[in-house]
């Protein structure tokens, strides 16, 4: 934004400017949010400010799995209920949330914080791969599940990791690829359909 408008109180203009920096917030939304805060009870505004500061102060990355956490090691890494011999490798912290929602996985995680994207100059060095290798050396790991996204970057990352882990004697698996629930067969692309056919299984009644 260029020069502040003079009819605007300076603190309000500053708040608008801060909101404007957030993703998906345009100039109008920034103004709307600022004026909403202005009318908000002081206690609520303080709670919001405190929450923002808290996040910045208390939350960091788990020294083991690199997930976002407020305690180190994170709750999953520290838990005694988790199966410690399986590590599920994901691109982003939000992917852990998605997998946890299923309640179908009881092992540990490792967050790479990205995927290999050669065209954007993101190579293996930019990811938390070194940390993963360190874990595989020190921990008793039986299986590594590559749960990167089923798109070009995610597949490239999975292939790269599979190649890297090959010398270590452990089971390396990849999430299955197939048809999404609620999808239509006729709209499926050939790659997905081929994989779905390859991964078909017997119906039991």
């Amino acid at each position, binding site marked *: 934004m260029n020069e502040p408008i003079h009819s605007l109180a300076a603190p309000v203009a500053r708040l608008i400017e801060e909101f404007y920096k957030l993703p998906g917030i345009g100039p109008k939304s920034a103004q709307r949010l600022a004026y909403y805060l202005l009318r908000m009870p002081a206690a609520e505004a303080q709670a919001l400010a405190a929450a923002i500061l808290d996040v910045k102060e208390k939350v960091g990355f788990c020294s083991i799995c690199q997930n976002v956490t407020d305690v180190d090691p994170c709750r999953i890494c520290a838990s005694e209920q988790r199966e410690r011999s399986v590590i599920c490798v994901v691109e982003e912290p939000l992917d852990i949330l998605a997998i946890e929602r299923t309640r179908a996985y009881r092992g540990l995680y490792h967050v790479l914080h990205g995927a290999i994207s050669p*065209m954007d100059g993101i190579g293996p060095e930019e990811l938390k791969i*070194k940390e993963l290798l360190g874990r595989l050396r020190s921990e008793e790991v039986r299986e590594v599940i590559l749960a990167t996204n089923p798109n070009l970057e995610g597949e490239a990352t999975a292939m790269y990791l599979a190649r890297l882990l090959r010398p270590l004697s452990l089971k390396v698996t990849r999430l299955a690829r197939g048809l999404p629930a609620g999808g239509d067969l006729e709209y499926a692309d050939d790659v997905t359909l081929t994989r779905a056919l390859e991964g078909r299984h017997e119906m039991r009644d």
Partner: protein
Amino acid sequence: MAPPHLYKTEAIVLRQRRLGEADRILTLYTTAYGKLEAKAKGVRKTTSRMAGHLQPLTRCMVQLAQGRVNEVVAGCQTIESFQALREDLHRLSRALYAAELVDRLTPERVPGFATYRLLLETLRHLERTEDFGPSGGSGLDPSGGSGLDLALRYFEMRLLEDSGFRPELGRCVTCGSTLQPQQNFFSPQSGGVVCPSCAPGTAGPRMLSLNGLKVLRLLQRGSYNEVARLKVPPPLAQEVERHLRSYIAYILERDVNAAAFIERLRRQEPAWLVEV
């Protein structure tokens, strides 16, 4: 020619970037309108019907609607998905390099059917070339990829020509005399080969061996089949690659990102594997 409001064209997806919650901006190279950007809505959701058809390096028929800023993808259907290319890092990294180079060298909305054909053929070559160098390996062996590299050099030379940056390989760019069968110099800044007597006064001359010049000339004048039959020893292949890469870096005023990943795959052992 301005495209109509809703139109169909064949395209190869060059690259993509995320936009907002579930959208992507795609860079497409189309047969009819050249390179353009299009917004693909909702393609990051697992239930997207289009996502699988719009991955980078897919050749597809797209239906585009003119939006306010970008075109919007209204529909798409895969024509060729280059599956074998995606399942091998050596092939994939080189294909991404080719796509990135097209993206960086071509202007927006200038039809270039020759470039489209070249990219399409290169993707096919990269998918099918079997020569994997000395170990003839699985495609995962780190020293592999010499046949692929030759296909990529051919692509670079042709793309340079299509974009108006054809390097001069017949005569000295400074004095104009016919090049002698001897060691000459390649000068990216001058756009071609410089003879030994002109080299001292030229910006950034790099030594060019006689065989290096011969390979460059074949890449420029030969057909792909002639190039593919060539057996190039590794040091010579590296020399040719260095010259073309320095020339491209000079034109673009930057390096091609994907080149770093090709390099990384070539290295026997990732450096930090030894470190840990």
